[in-house]
């Protein structure tokens, strides 16, 4: 289990190698990468700035990761989230889950993203070509995504 909050970019291959290197108990690795879109709906954006709550961010990510490890038999997991100014096409977030079999890795990765999006204290502000900027509103669909996990905690996946 590992979490990192950083301004620097990440390399997915390097991160996977770091988790799986020297291990033979892992049969499945799933990664999710979130990237900056070049438009918010119809409106183009020039950059996105991510603010966070140092201390609570790490604590909340660790809680979310611990919850995933309670629910699924994970061999390893990693969350990397970037902060600061990012541009369209840049990486924002990386989730990696590793398990003996694929279902646990797939489900845990999705669970981590759903929980991270609703609980980890990050806030995005988008800048537009005209020089204005606006805080991104939370999405109802993210809250709905979370409810799925509350209704049916999956313990069966292996």
């Amino acid at each position, binding site marked *: 289990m590992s979490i990192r909050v950083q301004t620097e970019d990440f390399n997915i291959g390097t991160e996977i190698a770091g988790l799986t290197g020297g291990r033979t108990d892992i049969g499945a690795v799933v990664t999710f990468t979130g990237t900056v879109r070049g438009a918010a709906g119809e409106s183009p954006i020039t950059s996105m700035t991510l*603010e966070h709550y140092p201390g*609570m961010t790490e*604590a909340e990510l660790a809680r979310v990761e611990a919850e995933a490890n309670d629910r699924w038999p994970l061999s390893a997991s990693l969350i990397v989230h970037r902060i600061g100014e990012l541009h369209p096409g840049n990486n924002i977030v990386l989730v990696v889950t590793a398990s003996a079999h694929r279902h646990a890795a797939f489900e845990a990765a999705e669970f981590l993203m759903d929980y*991270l999006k609703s609980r980890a204290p990050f*806030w995005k502000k988008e800048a537009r070509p005209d020089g204005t900027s606006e805080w991104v509103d939370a999405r109802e669909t993210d809250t709905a995504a979370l409810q799925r996990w509350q209704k049916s905690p999956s313990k069966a996946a292996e």
Partner: protein
Amino acid sequence: MTSGTKTNTVTLRYFAWVREKIGFAEEEIFLPAEVATVAELIVWLKTRGETYQAAFDKPEVVRTALDQTHARADTPIANAREIAFFPPVTGG
């Protein structure tokens, strides 16, 4: 917890548009005795000026953390040392 004159001093932290509306990121306040919950603290903060009124105009939108743990409007402040106010989170 210890008792004494310092126990009612708490650090308030503001993030994202809550911070922008209030005008700064952090302050120390002396928590009034009548303030027991998050909701009561918001009511009290709104008496402190227009910037606070603007930030807490729709208090149901503002999220709270007590000592870096998510809390709700009816959560007792109890012995929390750090109380944070922020918009719904938008990471990921």
